[in-house]
């Protein structure tokens, strides 16, 4: 057992792609937690999808021992996701730490999520050590980065440590700083078990693995533990640490980060943020816990061809055992049948969940375009929240429609201010503040309707700034505006999944563009297909997809069979992403065409 003064709990936070996982790998390797041979790139990203996409989705952890000035320290490291969708994972991780490494790419400088994460760290009252990484890159300018940090966040530039996680340069200094500058866990005067549940994973063989950080007391195998909020009691069957593979230990004590097994069958039985204590000697001071992640983006998942609703439900249930960051509930669409309305933290999160469902659940999904939550006030004073335009009640009973508003900060090279203002104002943004981080880089603050930026603002920002712009946002509330519901009719049939809520001034234009996009997405059929956009029953735009007159392969003999079959297989695969609405097959792309706000 290590005494508290020799424990450091810290997280690495950074903007996406600034090298968190590589730095985590390098630290583990230096401390000898993993051998060079074991070290496949990005040790802590253990989900296939994380490795493939090169991003961290879930916060990950590793305990390592490090000898410093003749004494052995136990260092508990948490690697956190950098993408804005996973802020809540970062804030969770921070409550289990006393310090953070705020990592900045030496070539890219401070970015929007650097700032956002730094604020989270300040809120959690953790010690911040700025780390300027990738100093081996030709374009690196570490001193300037340190100055930016000082300017934006008030962290003295001379506190920054320069590293290259790739070459190992600066890693020893970093270890020294972690041990000297970060506080050890505070001793708990009460000395009763208080363990914060910061994550939980489902393991097929061992049941739920509950990830904990102990703030007081000790726990060991055989203890009768109690979840304070849930009130349930369990017998501890194993405690352990991640090094980085999970391994059993005799006991966990205050300051430790590790895991608990207690024959828990489903993740629904574990509340992230709950406090674990001992049943016979309970704490009276449970830890503050977390706010549940707030789903911001909603869309519907319908079973694609070859998948039935129960299959999709099974896939959801299976995935939910492992990841409760999304929500789902049964929904039905007049056009598309029975499906699931899902809530996500953002678009990347949505994409990841969809991929995991398809991969891990072996289902085909047809997905509708994501929308945001609207607040609707009815004439009788009732206020309701709708997650899809199709839920909007008849306008005769609606008094007001309010859309979610967010505050966004955008960091760009000063040369692109004009371009960024242009794309932002087009998205109904209001510009509130301009702050120079350095003579060449600037932070712009905006207020946006969330629905205007959630789909493609990042992409537009990236292309308007040659990839240098970054953005971060925070939802602040709802605001009333002149909003209407735009309906789309395909072959005279309203397709509820294609409806959108838009600002009245933009409706006609949007409707026209939308059906023009649809015209490109839907292939010709053997009959003519009218496409119409309507507001409250009034047609505002119309296009027609011409009928196909002839669709027949003239020659098909022995030498053609293989090639033709492969073509058919490809088309069959394509059809999996189509939804049959009446007589018309609507491809996945058509549902997404709603997203194009155009120029």
């Amino acid at each position, binding site marked *: 057992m290590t005494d508290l003064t020799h424990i450091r709990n810290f997280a690495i936070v950074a903007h996406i792609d600034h090298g968190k996982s590589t730095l985590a790998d390098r630290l583990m390797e230096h401390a000898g937690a993993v051998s060079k041979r074991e070290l496949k790139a990005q040790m802590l990203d253990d989900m296939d999808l994380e490795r493939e996409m090169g991003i961290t989705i879930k916060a990950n952890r590793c305990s390592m021992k490090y000898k410093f000035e003749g004494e052995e320290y136990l260092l508990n490291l948490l690697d956190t996701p950098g993408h804005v969708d996973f802020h809540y994972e970062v804030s969770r991780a921070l409550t289990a730490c006393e310090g953070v490494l705020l990592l900045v790419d030496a070539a890219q400088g401070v970015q929007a999520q650097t700032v956002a994460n730094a604020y989270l760290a300040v809120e959690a009252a953790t010690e911040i050590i700025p780390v300027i990484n990738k100093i081996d890159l030709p374009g690196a300018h570490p001193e300037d980065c340190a100055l930016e940090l000082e300017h934006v966040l008030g962290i003295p530039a001379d506190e920054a440590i320069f590293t290259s996680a790739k070459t190992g340069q600066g890693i020893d200094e970093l270890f020294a700083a972690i041990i000297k500058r970060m506080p050890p866990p505070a001793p708990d005067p009460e000395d009763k078990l208080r363990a914060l549940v910061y994550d939980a994973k489902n393991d097929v063989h061992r049941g739920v693995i509950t990830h904990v950080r102990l703030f007081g007391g000790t726990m060991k195998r055989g203890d009768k533990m109690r979840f304070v909020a849930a009130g349930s009691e369990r017998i501890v069957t194993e405690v352990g640490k991640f090094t980085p593979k999970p391994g059993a230990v005799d006991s966990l004590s205050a300051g430790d980060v590790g895991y608990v097994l207690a024959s828990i069958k489903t*993740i*629904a039985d574990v*509340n*992230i*943020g709950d406090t674990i204590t001992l049943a016979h000697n309970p704490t009276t001071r449970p830890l503050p*816990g*977390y*706010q*549940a*992640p707030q789903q911001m983006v909603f869309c519907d998942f319908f079973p694609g*061809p*070859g998948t*039935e*609703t*129960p*299959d999709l*439900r*099974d896939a*959801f*249930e299976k995935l*939910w055992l492992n990841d*409760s*960051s999304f*929500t*789902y*509930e*049964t929904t039905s669409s007049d056009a598309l049948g029975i499906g*699931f309305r899902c*809530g996500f933290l953002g678009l990347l999160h949505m994409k990841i969940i969809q991929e995991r469902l398809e991969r891990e659940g072996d289902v085909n999904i047809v997905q509708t375009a994501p929308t945001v939550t609207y607040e609707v006030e009815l004439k009788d004073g009732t206020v309701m929240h709708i997650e899809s335009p199709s839920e909007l009640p008849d306008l005769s009973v609606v008094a007001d429609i309010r859309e979610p508003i967010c505050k966004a900060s955008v960091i760009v090279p000063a040369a692109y201010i004009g371009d960024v203002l242009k794309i932002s104002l087009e998205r109904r943004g209001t510009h509130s503040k301009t702050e120079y981080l350095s003579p060449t880089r600037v932070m712009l603050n905006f207020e946006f309707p969330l629905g205007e930026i959630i789909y493609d603002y990042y992409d537009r920002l990236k292309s308007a700034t040659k990839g240098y712009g970054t953005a971060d946002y925070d939802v602040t509330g709802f605001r009333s505006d002149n909003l209407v519901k735009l309906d789309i009719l395909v072959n005279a049939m309203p397709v509820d999944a294609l409806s959108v809520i838009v600002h009245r001034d933009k409706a006609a234009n949007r409707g026209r563009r939308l059906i023009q996009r649809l015209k490109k997405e839907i292939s010709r*059929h*053997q*009959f003519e297909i009218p496409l119409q956009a309507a507001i409250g029953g009034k047609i505002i735009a119309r296009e027609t997809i011409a009928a*196909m*007159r*002839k*669709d*027949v*392969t*003239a*020659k*098909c*003999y*022995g*030498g053609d*069979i*293989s090639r*033709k*079959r492969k073509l*058919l*297989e490809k*088309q*069959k695969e394509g*059809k999996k992403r189509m939804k*049959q609405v009446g*007589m018309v097959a609507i491809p996945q792309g058509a549902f997404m065409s709603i997203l194009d706000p155009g120029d």
Partner: protein
Amino acid sequence: MNKEISDHNLGLYLHWPFCESKCGYCDFYSVPLKGRDVAPLLDAFAIDLRSRVAECDKQIDTIFWGGGTPTTLEDDNLSIALGHIQNATSNHPIREFTIEANPATVDERKAATLVDLGVTRVSLGAQSFHQNELSALERLHTPRDVPEAIRIIRAAGITHYNIDLIFGIGGQTLASWQESLARAVELEPPHLACYGLTYEHGTSLTKQLKLGHIEACDEQLEADMFLACKDYLERCGYEQYELSNYAKPGHQCLHNLIYWKNGSYQAVGPSAAGCLGNIRFKNVSDINEYIRLINSNGHAIADREIIGETERALEGLMMRMRLIDGLDLADFLRCTGINLIENCRNAIARLTDSELIVCDESKLRMTRRGLLMADTVIRELASELDPPSGMSLNVVASRPIGDA
């Protein structure tokens, strides 16, 4: 006949890769002859032929010699090649032996050689009876060559012959198409193949189309041509038995029926494709490489593919639906284990509602409108075709939302 073909009989496809010149629409493997020495290829061809035929554990009863243009062979070489074929298949009860020919490549001597050495059927690439259309297709012969070739073939005693025609050529009119059809029918062929022009990848016509040098036929006009052809030929006593093939009673091409009924066929020659049971293979598409491989390995197979049950079912659907007589549901069930009516219930309902197919208890077949939309029909059916799986339908209650 169906079962007879798929289970017991074997076709033999031979590919001769030389032509006088490459036609603008052709995507088969062929190269211009240009005075090349064909002897090394003939030798390799003979070795390939002997070993392929020896490998067969079933009786070959149809032969189809295509290309390229086999009749570009000089008479003596033609005799040698046919001699090889006759020797190799002497123990097999050949019911039909087709050779492909181009109008200007047949003379009396060659025709006599064909008959002497076992050929029973000639397929003549006439394509059109209008010079401007033949030029557009980059064909070498003239409209006059066609009746002359037919006269020679008939004089030699060949009664089974086919005329190939193409419609949907840029600049072609409905009237000119109908005239070509009438001129062909005057020659009393027992079999006609009428193809809509297809712009295949990599062909001269496709390049010209992409560059905007030529214009494709209007889709509606092409559809009109297809139906005009069907109606006219049916009035003349022909029966449409496949999307592009018409025959007088008793004159259907037995060899091609093997393809459409997913039977087995051996393959000989560069680029020839074969299928034996669940194995598909294709010879290398290069004459020199073919010769080298035959001489060193005894075969020149470049691609081999094992067809799984799902693929097999897809091929079955794709090919059998081309037959006007339709797809025999009981036969399909027997061959693939798939009850199509159950498996593709929704697609069948949609296609029936759209009047593209009719479905009775025993067969699924296309309507007149469906023939024009055959690819749509096949795609729709294929999209739902799936081997049966043990799918449970119990509905479980939705999980509550949130985690804290």
